[in-house]
Each structure stands twice: as C-alpha cells, then as structure tokens.
C-alpha cells in the first residue's frame, strides 16, 4: 500500500492504518530501534508506541510524502528517551558508542549549550547536511540516523572500514566547527 493511502486511513481514523503501517514499515522500524537498543523487547515496545504515537498525531499531521521519516523520527526518539531515563549501566553498547562519537562534536560549557532548542539544533544540522556531499551525508545518516555499524556502512558504500571511520571523524569535526560557528559552544 502506498504511503498516501496509509495516511488516508489514519485520517479516516481507520484502525487498519496501524496494520498497514506495520506490514510496510514494521520490520524497518523494529530494526532501527533494535540496532540502537540491542534489545528485542525494547524495540518491540518502541514499535508499538510508535504506532500509538502515529495514531495520536495523524491528524493533524499528514506525512503523505514522508511517512517513514516521520515514523522513524518517532521510534528513534522513543528509543533514545528510553535510554535517557535508564541508568547509565543499562544503556546499550551501541547507544554509548554513538553518544561518545557525537560528544566529540560538542565541547565545553554545558550551561551555555543547554540554551539550544531542539528546533534550532535541527535547523543547524539540516544546513550542515546540505553542505555535505551526497556520499558524506548518506554515510553520516546511515551511522547516526539508522545506527548502522561501520562495517555495514563500508559494505553498503563499497569502501574500506578505515575510510568510513575517517570520513565519519571528519564529518564530526565539521559538525563541531559548524556548532562552534553558530555560537552554541564555548
């Protein structure tokens, strides 16, 4: 079923919308959450919550052209929120690894940095992604949006793992510079 038809079902408040969403995107969504959490239970729980959230937010939202990114955003946030609530010891290896990598993009005074709103940060990242080459952007998103392993990214892009790591490192450095230029860090 096409995304627009699924969204129409949501708009009509037809419960088949959830089933069709699950059929089309269930595996992808569960994988997304599973790659970050490493837990089948958490990923299934987040998947169900995602359907619930989608049911609550469509309408007024009408993500006809971006249903997967919309659902992906929900399940990512749910999974991340799950770990933010949890004790650090319970956090998954992938979550800790990705957090560590992205912490390189940040520096210094957390009081100053805390003034950043999510919307502003998203705007900065959007501009930043627009400044990257297609390959750089896709590799960055495969790693930090889809939580792919470096080895998988290397395979997908037919490059070596070391090159992938180097590219990710440089992109993070670039993001750090961008955040610095925006004045959000010390």
């Amino acid at each position: 079923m096409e995304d627009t038809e699924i969204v129409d079902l949501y708009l009509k408040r037809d419960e088949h919308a959830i089933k069709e969403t699950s059929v089309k995107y269930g595996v992808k969504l569960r994988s997304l959450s599973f790659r970050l959490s490493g837990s089948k239970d958490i990923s299934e729980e987040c998947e169900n919550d995602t359907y619930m959230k989608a049911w609550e937010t469509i309408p007024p939202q009408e993500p006809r052209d971006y249903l997967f990114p919309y659902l992906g955003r929900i399940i990512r946030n749910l999974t991340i929120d799950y770990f933010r609530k949890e004790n650090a010891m319970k956090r998954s290896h992938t979550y800790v690894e990705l957090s560590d990598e992205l912490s390189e993009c940040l520096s210094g005074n957390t009081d100053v940095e805390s003034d950043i709103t999510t919307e502003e940060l998203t705007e900065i990242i959007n501009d930043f992604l627009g400044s990257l080459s297609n390959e750089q952007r896709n590799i960055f998103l495969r790693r930090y949006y889809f939580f792919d392993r470096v080895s998988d990214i290397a395979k997908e892009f037919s490059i070596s793992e070391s090159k992938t790591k180097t590219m990710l490192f440089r992109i993070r450095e670039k993001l750090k510079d961008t955040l610095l230029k925006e004045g959000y860090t010390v």
Partner: protein
Amino acid sequence: MKSDELLKAIGNVDAKYINEADKYSETNSSESSESNNNISDITDAKTHKSAKKPVKKKTMTTFSQVYRAVLSMAAAVALIFIFVSALNIYKKNNSTASSTDVALDTGTTEDASDESTTDGSAGTNDSSKSIDNSLGEEFSLDTASNEDNATTESSTEDAASTDSANSDDLDKQLSASNPKATVTTVAGSDYSFSVEVPSGLAYYNTLDADNGSIKINYLSTNDPAIILYPDDSKEDYLQDGNVVYITYNKDGDIKNDTEQAYDYIIFNGANKGLIATNRSDWSEKYASELEHVYGSLKLSK
C-alpha cells in the same frame, strides 16, 4: 547540550535526506531482514516451542561465519603471496646490486669499465648513475659527456632510452627503469596497489602528510625502495616493507587522506619520480611539477 540530544536532533532532519539515505539500506536489506527474522524466530520459538526455526537461524549464522572465514583466509593467502613475491624480488635484486657494484654516493664519475658492461642497456648501473646524479646534478644521462670518450656512445644510447622513459607514457617509463618495477593490484581493494621495486632503486621515502611534501632520503642499496604507508596512521608508516600507499585529495595534495583514491609513486633513482596512478590524469598533470630540491621532492600545484 548533551550528545544524546544531538543524536535526537539528527532524527528530526529533513525527510528528503532520510529518504535518500534510506535507499542505501536496500543492499543491506537481506541482512536486516535476516536479523528481524531472527527476532521473529526467537519470538516464535518462545510462543510455539518450535525447534525448527532456531535451528534454521543457527545454520544461517554458521554459513555466514564460514563464508567470512573463507574470505579471511583467501585474503591472508593473497597477502602472503604478495609478501613472498616481494621478498623474492628483493633478494634477487640484492644479489644483482652487489654483483654490479651499485653505489649511492660515490661521486659523480664512474669507471669506464663499468660503463662498457652496460652498453646499450638500461642496466643496474643506470640506476646507480641516476642516484649519483640526483645527489646534486640535474638528472640527465647526457652527463655522460663528462665521462670517458669510450663511453659516450653507450651513454648516448642510455640517454635516448631515458628520454623516452621520461615521456608521458607511463608504461614506457616503468619499463625503462631497470631493474623493472612491477605493479600489481592488491587483492580485495579497488584502489590499493602494491608496487614492487627492486632495491637497486634505493630511495627512502618519507611522507610529510601535513604539508604535502615528500622527502627523499637515501638508503643503502640493500634497503627497499618503497616504504609502507598505511592509510590510517601517520606514525610507523616507515616500515621495513617495499610497498607504499600514498593517498591524496582531489587537488593533488599528497596527504594522509583516505577520502580519495590511493596512488603510488615510484622514484626511479632520478630526480624525476615515476608516478603511477589509477587516475589517468594525475601523472600527466603533476609529474612535471615535482621539483628536486636537495634530495627532496616537493609537490607543487
């Protein structure tokens, strides 16, 4: 701002970027579906106490492991083969070098009898002469005019062959250098090349990754001409190997930049380096711009 907030913010980026990046998961979809099948299998096993699906999962995992193990072994064998080949060439040329009395810095004049033994051929003595010349003189086999008249003819022939070797035709350049450098592709990589250069070409390459210059130092004739330069570390790249990986960016700056293709440079014992590349435009564009400055080659744009 915490890193998890940044991670979260990345999830809110423009949908067009997500859709674009999502296309790259197609190649990996079998893997992800496999992992999800595994999740389903586990669920089914718990619910239905079915023994078949977990067994299937285990089989797939085993097959994958075997496949990877075979690939690893093949790569290891290829590496050993390359290493042994390089070692053989290294040994062979060591013996050649010692028999023809190659010297790196023994002055600029050569014995006439040595010249007569290399008449008309680009022999190892040519290499030694090139090395001598590169110590301070412009590389040209026309310097044979300073030598004994009896050697003029043979030197002229050498000069002629070397002139053609310095032409744009890289293959001719490679074949003109003697001992001959051989170029092979490293198995398992699109861009990595190994260059096996006999020790008669004894140069010692140090690469300053930060300022894009290449410094050339002399080694004894027993040392390999080309030095291993791993793509990821600036340190310890001068290992006792005979392969060099040099990476550079699109502008031609040689640096430790793994974002772009690999290339290699063979220095033929002269003050003009032979440049071999997997990008056809590179050597033509920059080969002539390598300058010889007191034993160092500096790349200029």
